[in-house]
């Protein structure tokens, strides 16, 4: 991977403005889409009223639909997309592996263990409301898997070498997958198998303001955190030895960023399940546009990931009448053709 500064400073600035405009426009369109029809004018009235522009004849139903159901869900999509795509970019550079994605350290399969324990076995968590148990269990499962992977990967020296880490991640993921399958097959009742599968494929349905704000917070923290490491990540592109000779504390950087990406990813998985493909592919789509310098690559990945997820989620809840399409299927459906096109043009791979 060579460092390519694809554009000059002004070019990047224009691209950033354009990207943000597309993101805001996508969110605005998504706000108008739902199974109950709310005209654009009424959507704007709801937003204006909430911004303090008077009552504007907004009905309770309109406010519930636009402000309480759709907006948090859309913000959640933005946050999850941003976290997954920027985490993917970080991990691909850190491990110098094009196949690295945010679930590298077992967080999705670990979260699956927590989720299936709640969905199938009905494991409760003391003092938590029914709706909060699943995210809590998924997050706990993700942390446990992360700890296991780090333990295995750092055994015999804490250098957290990429190939050891990837291998440990694969091993732990398989163990978690085995648990999930056994529980579903042996204890699944009613539509448990379907509910577990649906959780696995990810969904932003049911996000309310509380969880959406947690996700947005995680995304902001992630971006600020990752950007602070942008120059060190640039150095990693030349390989471990070069990075070391450039004065980068290799081991410490690996630990901080691997744990950091895993924590924010685990947060998204807790609320939205393991939405695949975004973290793997978006960085590849963005590099030809903005180059490989992380100061540009990370925010660009975040915006592109956010746009992809907003559209995938809008399609998920509106493509088929009376049925949600799994969002994981749609991220692939939208992303794969773009990736194939870029590969054919030899700008990727």
């Amino acid at each position, binding site marked *: 991977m060579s460092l390519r500064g694809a554009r000059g400073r002004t070019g990047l600035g224009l691209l950033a403005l354009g990207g943000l405009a597309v993101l805001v426009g996508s969110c605005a369109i998504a706000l108008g889409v739902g199974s*109950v029809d709310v005209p654009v004018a009424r959507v704007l009235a709801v937003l204006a009223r909430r911004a303090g522009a008077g009552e504007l004849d907004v009905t309770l139903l309109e406010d519930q639909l636009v402000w309480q159901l759709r907006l948090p869900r859309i913000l959640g999509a933005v946050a999850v997309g941003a976290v997954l795509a920027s985490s993917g970019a970080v991990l691909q550079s850190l491990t110098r592996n094009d196949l690295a994605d945010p679930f590298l350290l077992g967080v999705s399969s670990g979260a699956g263990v927590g989720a299936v324990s709640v969905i199938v076995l009905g494991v409760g968590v003391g003092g938590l409301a029914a709706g909060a148990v699943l995210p809590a269990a998924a997050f706990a499962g993700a942390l446990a898997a992360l700890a296991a992977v780090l333990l295995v990967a750092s055994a015999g020296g804490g250098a957290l070498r990429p190939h050891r880490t990837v291998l440990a991640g694969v091993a732990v993921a398989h163990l978690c997958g085995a648990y999930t399958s056994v529980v579903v097959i042996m204890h699944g009742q009613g539509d*448990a198998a379907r509910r577990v599968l649906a959780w696995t494929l990810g969904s932003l349905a049911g996000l309310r303001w509380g969880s959406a704000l947690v996700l947005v917070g995680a995304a902001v923290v992630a971006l600020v955190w990752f950007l602070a490491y942008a120059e060190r990540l640039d150095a990693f592109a030349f390989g471990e030895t070069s990075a070391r000779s450039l004065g980068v504390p290799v081991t410490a950087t690996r630990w901080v960023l691997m744990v950091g990406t895993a924590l924010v990813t685990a947060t998204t998985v807790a609320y939205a399940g393991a939405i695949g493909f975004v973290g793997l592919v978006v960085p590849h789509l963005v590099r030809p546009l903005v180059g490989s310098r992380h100061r540009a690559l990370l925010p660009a990945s975040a915006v592109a990931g956010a746009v992809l997820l907003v559209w995938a989620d809008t399609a998920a*809840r509106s493509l088929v009448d*009376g049925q949600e399409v799994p969002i994981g299927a749609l991220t692939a459906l939208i992303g794969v053709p773009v990736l194939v096109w870029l590969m054919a043009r030899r700008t990727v791979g």
Partner: protein
Amino acid sequence: MIRRTVLRPTLPTVPSTGPSTARLRRLGGLVLAAGLLSGCTGAPATGSAPPTSSDRFPVTVTSCGHEVTVDEPPSEVVTLNQGATEVVLALGLADQLAGTAYLDDAVPEEWQAAYDAVPALSAEYPTNEQLLAARPDFVYASYASAFEPAVAGTQDDLAASGVGSYLSPFGCPEATDRPEASFEAVWDEVTDVASALGHPEAAERLRDEQEDQLADLRSGAAGEGLDVLWWDGGTKSPNVGAGDGGPQLVLDAVGATNVFGDLPGSWAEGSWEDVLAADPDVIVLVDAVWDRAADKRAYLESDPVLSGLTAVREQRYAVVPFSASTAGVRLVDGAASLAGQLGELGLDG
């Protein structure tokens, strides 16, 4: 019924193989031989079969394209799935049962004693050996998964070893063979089963009783003027009773309006947006072992948006057991229970 039928199997679909059929027969022979050698004929029957006029036999009944001719009244019937067990209990023919298996929740109190007098072969599906050990002369099941090789074996295999079998038409593997849910279709199944068991008059009696009950419910019209949400489960998006199944029949029987009555199928995925827009007068919470009504209620009351629904604020709930919401003999009881609960809510439509 499509959703339920597809999801019921907890066993992986195993392709039917020749050897397993042969093994099944050999095992049958072994069990029989072992019984003969030890001079043991199994536990004594709790009661001899009731008198049946032999001129009613042979009887031929057909479901899901499988024709079965019964030459003499079966006295060792095994029922698989709760629905099938309840049909036999409702007919008052429990003393012809050799075993039952696979309850989803519990049989109604009035049949508990009769149910307890028959051995339950297994909590879920029995293994093929457990089934053979019960020495059935007739196997009656609600779902096609009961006739997988690992459970009872195919209906043709059973016929080849002299065991009659009947699959509920609602559980036919081919969707085109399934009747539309109606009380008429339920009574047709009951009549088939009663005839095969040698007591067609029991079906007539049951049908007359249920028709009277339904007539009372219809004239009582406890749900007149009420918009009802039939919530089967699912928090991210609600699984609801749709327009063509058990839930709709129950709501029709009490004169209530199903807010998702225009969706096709027995159950369907609705959307919370539509629920908010409809703002139902009453919410039916389906109580299933895998998804309790109390948990559903807790979710509604803790959700920041759904807690604003009129039915939630005024605590207008009705609870219906899942097993009384599928097309079967308990559907009328489900309607009666709902009518009673609506009456207690004391709403004027």
